[in-house]
């Protein structure tokens, strides 16, 4: 190929921005790739993962921007914000913008993300198909700002959907003083990531933080200014309804262009669609076994695709991402990974469970072939971290399964055990390699008190940390000898 390859990325969200970063990291001076990025929103790309922190009030909206204002110019990127794509002309290899302009490409990347689903509850949508007054989705920075603008301290808010994002929103809003009720059509929360017992422990924990739940219940009707009428006859007061009822991959451009779509734009290990010049990454893409809606797969796909598009590593392939789901909510710790619905009596797997709902603990481990195949870890951050390490690194699990279930080994007891119980070989002063036996001998030879024992053996003359133990030993010797 002569001259740089013309790459056009449709979408300037987390996936598109990351791909642009990865391409420029490999091709700083735009020698191999001429890059155009088309963004639909008027904002620069921002970190969607942090929106729940913005909603919770811990981050300002300007803290989530991914790029500086001068990023595009400084990185030889033709960035066009507020730009909608009308359609893709695959024959002419052009992207046609809403304004009529055509942008040619050698390789096209769809990073169009996903769109929130609005449940078919009466009254949620206005006549023109947009959300009714008081109804807000939770997907974009604008959504976030609209929710914050509509909040009144102490006023009731309903969250439709008890999945990951819905619960993060609920926790953030409760933390800001709203009275939050989560309405969820399934019998337990986060049903994709949790089993019923785990969902129950989570609901109890969130309940302690002031969030109410209506589970196994659908909202039938929304009345602005009043709230939601439920299908079990109940009523949820709400000045604001935050909809977080799942997303749908944004595939319209692809399907209109005749590219294969099956619950997402279908891609292979080279992240190619059914048209080998068109790629897709992130939420809009469908790769077998990799769930959408999480950023980790998008980032890994961006790295692989950047290798391919810049020619840095033409053999790079995407093999899927083992997903670990973490709920980002203050004072609530949830991790879910791999297979979580395996029953405890599954003969093929080793399943361990620890339930302590009173204290908000629930740990379930699914072990196959000595490896972690799945886990749910609630309220046990240390266990979550170590279980994830075993899962991600494919390490054989410890022989002591309970240690894993309980988190890493607890801090060792300090040397406060009775001196009488220590063996003679126990090292009391590490700084000077002095054992209990040596201290006892020194005492027998006439050394008394900490200073006498120190003088005779040097114990406690290093870091000084064992002084209390030496003191205890001296008293014990006085009392027992």
């Amino acid at each position, binding site marked *: 190929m002569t001259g740089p390859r013309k790459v056009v990325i449709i979408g300037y969200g987390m996936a598109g921005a990351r791909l642009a970063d990865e391409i420029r990291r490999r091709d700083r001076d735009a020698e191999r790739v001429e890059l155009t990025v088309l963004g639909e929103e008027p904002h620069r790309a921002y970190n969607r993962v*942090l929106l729940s*922190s913005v909603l919770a009030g*811990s981050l300002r909206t300007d803290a989530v921007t991914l790029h500086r204002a001068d990023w595009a110019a400084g990185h030889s990127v033709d960035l066009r914000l507020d730009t909608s794509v009308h359609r893709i002309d695959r024959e002419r290899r052009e992207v046609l913008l809403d304004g009529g302009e055509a942008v040619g490409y050698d390789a096209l990347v769809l990073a169009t993300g996903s769109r929130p689903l609005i449940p078919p509850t009466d009254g949620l949508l206005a006549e023109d198909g947009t959300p009714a007054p008081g109804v807000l989705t939770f997907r974009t920075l604008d959504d976030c700002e609209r929710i914050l603008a509509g909040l009144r301290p102490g006023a009731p808010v309903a969250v439709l959907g008890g999945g990951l994002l819905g619960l993060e929103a609920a926790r953030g809003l409760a933390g800001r003083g709203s009275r939050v009720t989560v309405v969820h059509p399934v019998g337990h929360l986060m049903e994709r990531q949790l089993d019923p017992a785990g969902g129950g422990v989570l609901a109890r924990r969130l309940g302690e933080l002031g969030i109410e739940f209506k589970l196994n219940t659908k909202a039938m009707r929304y009345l602005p200014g009043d709230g939601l009428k439920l299908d079990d006859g109940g009523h949820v007061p709400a000045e604001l309804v935050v909809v977080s009822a799942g997303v749908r991959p944004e595939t319209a451009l692809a399907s209109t262009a005749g590219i294969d779509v099956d619950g997402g734009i279908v891609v292979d290990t080279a992240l190619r669609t059914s048209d080998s010049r068109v790629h897709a990454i992130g939420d809009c893409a469908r790769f077998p076994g990799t769930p959408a809606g999480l950023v980790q797969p998008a980032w890994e796909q961006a790295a692989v695709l950047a290798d391919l598009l810049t020619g840095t590593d033409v053999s790079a392939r995407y093999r899927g991402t083992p997903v670990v789901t973490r709920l980002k909510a203050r004072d609530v710790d949830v991790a879910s990974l791999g297979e979580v619905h395996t029953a405890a009596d599954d003969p093929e797997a080793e399943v361990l469970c620890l339930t302590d709902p009173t204290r908000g603990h629930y740990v379930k481990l699914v072990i196959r072939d000595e490896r972690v195949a799945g886990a749910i870890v609630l309220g046990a*951050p240390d266990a979550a*971290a170590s279980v*994830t390490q075993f899962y991600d690194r494919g390490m*054989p699990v410890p022989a002591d399964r309970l240690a894993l279930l309980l988190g890493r080994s607890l801090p060792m007891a300090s040397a406060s055990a009775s001196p009488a119980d220590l063996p003679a070989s126990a090292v009391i002063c590490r700084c000077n*390699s002095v054992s209990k036996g040596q201290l006892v001998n020194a005492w027998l030879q006439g050394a008394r008190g900490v200073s006498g024992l120190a003088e005779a053996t040097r114990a406690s*003359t290093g*870091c000084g940390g064992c002084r209390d133990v030496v003191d205890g030993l001296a008293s014990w010797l006085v009392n027992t000898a």
Partner: protein
Amino acid sequence: MTTTERTPVAAPATSAPHQPAGGVNTHCPYCALQCGMTVTGKQVAPREFPTNRGGLCQKGWTSGALLDSAARLTTPLMRTGGQLRPASWDTALDHVAAKITGIQREYGPDGVAVFGGGGLTNEKAYLLGKFARVALRTSQVDYNGRFCMSSAAAAGMRAFGLDRGLPFPVTDLDEADAVLLVGANPAETMPPFMRHLDPSGLIVIDPRRTATAEQASLHLQPAPGTDLALALGILHSVVADGFLDQSYVDERTAGFEDVWRIVARWWPEHVERVTGVSAAEQRRAGAMLATARNAYLLTGRGTEQHATGADTVTAWINLALALGLPGRRGSGFGCITGQGNGQGGREHGQKADQLPGYRKIDDPAAREHVAGVWGVHPADLPGPGRSAYELLDALGEQAGPRGLLVFGSNVVVSAPHSAHVTDRLDALDMLVVADIVLSETAQRADVVLPITQWAEEEGTLTNLEGRILHRRRALAPPDGVRTDLEVLHALAGLLGQPPERFPSDPETVFAELGAASAGGPADYSGVNYPRLRAGEALHWPVPAGSDGTPRMFLDRFAHPDGRARFVPVEHVGPAESPDDDYPLRATTGRVLAHYQSGAQTRLVSELMRAVPESFVEVHPDTAARAGLCDGARATVASRRGTVCVTVRCVPSMRPDVLFLPFHFPGEQSANLLTNPALDPTSRMPEFKVCAARLEAA
């Protein structure tokens, strides 16, 4: 403590004739804490001094044994017929000078290289650098401090415009509510340092549950090589939890926005996956530091000795800046220097890119000043040379040095990928080693020069807090040995230098060092022996007439605009990854009973009884999977070499990590395994993580 001025355990000391009653006050021969001690006869005892508060570890207590070790060299050795045989000083030095001249005639000035050490006194480090640049006119000079402090030094320079290990006195730590130690294990490496730390506010980051970690109230245990990500995660939590010190960031720093753009991508749950440290613990560490009235963040070799060491330290500095710690009285950022004179050793010109006073060798003004002091033309000073590992790697190669002079270093044991380094040493036309004993490096030399050691000579060192200390001579050296200064003086003379240009009297050398450093970042020109003998606490910079600088950066940082720099850094991970053949990660470190390559401590029978040999620490499950139990013999292999050591099962180890101390030679030498991948900025090798395999021996 009541142990001061007493001499326990051993028989009554026989004082050397010139020793005053009660002994001679000096400092320990080992680490950078430079504990105050008294030498009486050949016995040592701790004394009250601010850094050690009257404490001393087993190494210090037993250091007197070095003074009458049977292994002590007292005559030069020359290799003839493949054997090292005794020779006279004249014969040995004449031979060295002739070889230097011959090699340089054939290969040019850079045909001969010099390798120094962080244990050398300021006077030796200074004169060695001058010897290289003036007598040898070689650019090929570096030192083992490259393996110690270089990453922290590079990061400190970048952030603050100047690097001093601790820019505040150690005793300031006493008042801290929170101290974060990253990759530092002072409970073993400098035990009396722990007297300054309050366990209730102590946070330790270390892949192992070290003796230090056991004393901490919070221990974060990341996978080796993931510290940078952990720093990003804690910084993220600091910002997200509302702890950013915005007014400090606005008034005293620059560059936060670009750092945040990276940190924003490293939220704690994401970092948890990379490091294994739970998001909750990251937040707790951030909150402990942020809510403390006084807080310090200190780094050690564990986080610095990586191919990304400079960036990793930078990430910790970024965290400290976000919390508003550096340059604020009662708080701060620092690096815990390792070797006895690791601080002074890096300031006086034995580093490939530096001239005395911590000046850059490629700065024309610096060259002119130093050349003026030395009485040579600036254009005659060589430029920057190879860094330590690159220098060792080039020995005997086509374009590399053919002769090497080693002072105060045992590279056969302490350099990474040590089998390769040994091969390079063996390829030299001439290897000269000056040492007190026949170290593993000296054993390969063509000429070995026996020299004095700490209590037998006078000199200054600069401790971990930048305080210049005077080490007195406590007793006469054995017959037949010379000081390093005398060796350099004699060699320079044989190479045609005027004798007064290389004085052998330490006080004279120190005065010249002061003049050479005047006006430089590490200015010693206001220091002199009488002030030090009088016990003045002088922390550099000490310009003429000044009382020194115990606390740096209180008003401004050393960049022209006075602001500290946030520098954006990204986590990339270790230079090599585990695979099916090498599924584990090995890391290296130290034990209390030994120091550096062990060349000194392995001579002390009491220390050898405490830790007689190397070992590999491993989780019991990992050992069992390899068919090993506690006490078994195992081989540990990396892509570069294999060691044979004893298994120690340690339940607190991460199951994917092996730990080996590096103090031992031969088949136990941990540096046979280590990865010489270098940091692009500091040229630090990756000592702290490599892919490895554990098997039954």
